[in-house]
């Protein structure tokens, strides 16, 4: 198994840093899948995360000027490793004045992802910073649980409002109730509702627009005003929203009535899918 990659472009480096910051906010521990064309950050530990799963994908050639990998075997040319997300984002903290970044799979007493940053300091001499992040290699027999989740046939698909607004609303709601109802219809309406014995609060977002439907049949018969809803843990929604520091290029919410809510985001060239299941 081998992996070495290099980023020399400042914009790519910043974007990569932003992605790692986002992942650190979304998942404490995650899986990094390295394949010849892509890098994926995966959270699929249904038990530990309470059913939440995440699939983040980026095309390696959009970031790396050099990219070499050799998977477990020729037929299985992939590497799956597990790491503590915060270790990666912290290692990338020093990249403001970086000239280049190298990532390598190494074995220093135990397997590591070694991050080497060449910094240009004020005195115009370069400085090298190295971080050895301990990782665990995930054996092939567990790979089947870490595959791209299938996008469910949703009842409603809607564009999300500005995430920062959504976040501040949910932030306030969190103090009142531990679970929240997210509902939307094909008329561009999205509501966030909390209900307790004493109070009922709903925030209405209107005229959001709905993306073109994947299959004409399923929604032809659907009343555009009819809401599809899911009861979810408010903390999970908040964690998802907190991870989005920048407003995405595209943000879609897919709701399967009483089953699951699926967020489909695009941050420039990085795609993020986040699934929050209904509370049982």
């Amino acid at each position: 198994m081998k992996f070495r990659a290099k980023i020399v472009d400042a914009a790519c480096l910043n974007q990569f840093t932003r992605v790692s910051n986002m992942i650190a906010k979304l998942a404490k521990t995650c899986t990094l899948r390295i394949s010849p064309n892509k890098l994926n950050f995966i959270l699929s530990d249904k038990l530990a995360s309470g059913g939440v799963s995440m699939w983040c994908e980026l095309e390696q050639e959009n970031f790396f000027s050099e990219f070499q990998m050799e998977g477990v075997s020729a037929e299985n040319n992939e590497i799956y490793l597990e790491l503590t997300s915060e270790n990666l984002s912290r290692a990338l903290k020093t990249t403001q004045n970086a000239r280049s970044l190298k990532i390598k799979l190494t074995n220093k007493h135990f397997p590591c992802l070694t991050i080497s940053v060449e910094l240009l300091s004020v005195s115009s001499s370069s400085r090298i910073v190295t971080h050895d992040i301990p990782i665990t290699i995930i054996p092939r027999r567990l790979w089947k649980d870490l595959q791209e989740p299938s996008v469910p046939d949703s009842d409603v698909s809607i564009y999300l409002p500005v995430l920062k607004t959504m976040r501040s609303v949910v932030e306030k709601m969190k103090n009142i109730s531990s679970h929240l109802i997210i509902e939307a219809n094909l008329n561009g309406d999205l509501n966030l509702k909390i209900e307790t014995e004493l109070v009922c609060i709903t925030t209405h977002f209107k005229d959001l627009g709905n993306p073109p439907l994947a299959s004409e049949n399923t929604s032809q018969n659907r009343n555009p005003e009819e809401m599809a809803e899911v009861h979810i843990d408010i903390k999970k929604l908040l964690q998802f929203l907190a991870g989005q520091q920048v407003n995405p290029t595209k943000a879609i919410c897919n709701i399967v009535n009483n089953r699951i809510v699926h967020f489909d985001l695009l941050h420039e060239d990085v795609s993020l899918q986040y699934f929050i299941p209904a509370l049982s």
Partner: protein
Amino acid sequence: NPAMLKCVMNGSQVKVFGKAIQALSRVSDELWLDPSEKGLALRSMNSSRSAYGCVLFSPVFFQHYQWSTSMKMNDNDRAFNLNCKLGMKSILPIFRCLTSLERNVEKCKIFTSSDECKIVIQFFCRHGIKRTHNVCFQESQPLQVIFEKNMCTNTLMIQPRLLAEAIVLFTSSQEEVTLAVTPLNFCLKSSSEDSMDLTNSVYSEMSFGPDEFDFFQIGLDTEITFCFKELKGMLTFSEAIHVPISIHFDFPGKPMALSVDDMLLEANFILATLADDPSRASSPQSLCLSQTRKRSDMIRSNSKADKSGTSQTPECISRKSAPKRLYPREAATKNSAGENCGSPQRKKASGDNIFEVPESIVSDTEEGPGSPYLRKFSCMFFGAVSSDQQEHFNRPLDSLAIASDSD
């Protein structure tokens, strides 16, 4: 007459004073206020005696500075200093919000007298507001540390901001950090003590070239490990007063010094370093007299670096000399020039600040340009003083403190 202290500061001086207290709070929960003719020293020592901090404010730092010892009649007719020990918990909150203190305080008066066992801190603020704090103190003779930082083989001086960029790498959970130097390279890295056990901790390393330093002199390739917290404390202080930070060290096990020196104040943190595996032969070879000359050269060039202030031209004196050892005992007895300084024991009793900064010997205007001969002797003397404590320094993480007479 009781021992007393009275000093007055303006808003910006209060800010620096407060920053010094904050830096010392990283060392321990206790603070000594120790006035002398050299100025007001703030001292702190941690409970495990592995870290000592001292910030000496020269009399000219203050708008007004007045102090006196008490003249208590006893057998020895000794003068007693103000032996004032304060709890950090009491004094730190008084110097909180330093930016607003700097803006609002027109004058700050600190005064005390030992017969009352309290210090009074008065802030005369804008709009006629006066704030008074009475803080009780405990009578306790300050602990002091003798450390000959200019006798160290390795000396570095760097702008604090550059070092602060490296500090960002390390998580606050890491207690210790290792500094590794060669004449061509400086490297700050996670202490390797921890990373073997905790397979979840990141190992980080940052290398600097000698040209990033204002002064870079390495006489001994070495790696020393010390507590991170105190380095951060001194770095923050150094950044606040815009003065470069100096690091003086030798081999593992021997204490190291972090210092910040400007015309008005001098701050020193003396930290214990982790000793090497004792089974390893780490005893340096003996020092021959010719090295004494090299030592004074280093001090002279060191003081040049200081005198030129923010000298941007890096002085890369790198030389692979034999590992030095503290001066042999015999030197102590031969010393005649050091007579005024007296024996260490007597010095403490007179309340002098035995934490002498060797630079002061060279840059002290009373001495004039000073003959190299005199300088050499002074260096030898201080080496001799330290050599009395040689056993202390060679033992791992041993107590740095030399207890004062009363203990």
